[in-house]
């Protein structure tokens, strides 16, 4: 079964040991997805698997067979422009070195969908209640799987707030 990466079908690797991250970077040369820790601690390798955010370093490429993978390269709009959130990261200084940025952006796009579904987080006061109120605390908790060593967190949270406000219109 092929893997669909940003809409294109690619064959799964012959070697079952190859991670989805290495397939993307080393085989498909989609180097936007970054390898930080390669052990599930930093979130730099976050991609969307069937719309859900996952760590591509701990996903075997074989596990993605038959699935739809979206990476930072696949987020641009139909006309090839930047995604709303990419533009917001620029405007809000949501990065310094940029290494964590593709993971942050993929993660935040999936997070917006989780919020839209009404999924609770650890800081949601009443998990049995309806959709949580979106606060900075909610965003920070939900984005805690993406580390940023430059400390651009305030800009990242603001960029995400901008995207949520824009898409709520």
């Amino acid at each position, binding site marked *: 079964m092929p893997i669909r990466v940003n809409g294109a079908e690619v064959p799964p690797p012959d070697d079952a040991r190859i991670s989805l991250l290495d397939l993307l970077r080393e085989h498909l040369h989609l180097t936007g997805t970054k390898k930080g820790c390669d052990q599930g601690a930093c979130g730099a390798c976050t991609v969307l698997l069937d719309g859900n955010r996952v760590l591509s370093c701990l996903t075997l490429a074989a596990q993605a067979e038959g699935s739809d993978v979206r990476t930072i390269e696949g987020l641009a709009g139909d006309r090839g422009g930047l995604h709303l959130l990419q533009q917001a990261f620029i405007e809000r200084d949501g990065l310094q070195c940029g290494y964590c940025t593709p993971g942050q952006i993929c993660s935040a796009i999936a997070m917006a969908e989780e919020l839209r579904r009404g999924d609770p987080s650890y800081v949601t006061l009443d998990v049995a209640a309806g959709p949580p109120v979106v606060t900075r605390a909610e965003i920070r908790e939900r984005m*805690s799987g993406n580390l940023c060593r430059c400390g651009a967190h305030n800009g990242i949270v603001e960029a995400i707030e901008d995207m949520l406000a824009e898409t709520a219109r």
Partner: protein
Amino acid sequence: MMPFGYVRATDRADAVARAGSGTRFLGGGTNLVDLLRQNMEQASNLVDVSRLDGSIRESHGGGLLIDASVRNAALAAHPLVRRRYPVLTRALLAGASAQIRNMATVGGNILQRTRCLYFYDVDGARCNKRQPGAGCDAREGFNRYHAILGASDQCVATHPSDMCVALAMLDAVIHLSGPDGERSVPLADFHALPNATPQVETVLKQGELITGVELPPPSDAVTHSEYRKVRDRSSYAFALISVAGGLALADGRVTEVRIALGGVAAKPWRARRAETALVGRAPSRDAILAAIREELVDARPLSGNAFKIGLAERTVTAVLTDLAGARA
């Protein structure tokens, strides 16, 4: 990493039929892939069980049946879990990150291995769990995260799961399927204390697969339950101490109380002694503190984690006091 084959099981029977020496079942891979990559675990074949049918449904008795392949994120967000077993949603959401919760399965979460740094340091540290008889460098090392209850001379590692602490508090039962048929084991009896064999972590037999978890119908104390986790940073970190608590009162006295502790032992620790001490009492701060102290009488702290005793006392007291306040 040694080469291995990969196959997706078509159903449970297919998965069990494929089990053999050298074969490992693969869930979300959040722990096993890492362990394989570091050569701490070896497999000749991975049988992927993460794509097996995964549903969450009510049992005939009014409880909940959760298939082992359900992802942690899906379980946490399920309306029945949020409404009837809030402690489970809270515990799941306290664990790992959103990405990892999207990947990790319920079965895999139960079987995840300790996060003891010495266990992971293949080249630099001795570990009886990794290599029986080698010795334990955690006992006299950096043991801030290690056990205060139920440890042995051989091993002081803790079980890292938040979900399992809630499952212990909920009297969950684990359903297994293996070459000899099906059986069920209470979660409380599933994980082993280290004793002289720290490499034996569960009662799972060769070739057995966790197929599901069953929760009994929610009691009053379960519907009013909470999970609190204390850690070195406020998110995405393993527990120093965690508490799953539930409380039911009548006429100002405790009719039912449930307490389980995480971060204290090689298994989620159900604090039965403290529960017994509290039933029939008014849930005052002093009564709660006295009860949890009774539980912790056997605590044996290491060089770097004596603080856990006081932290456990205060966290249990805070959780139960809050629950009592909310119900008064």
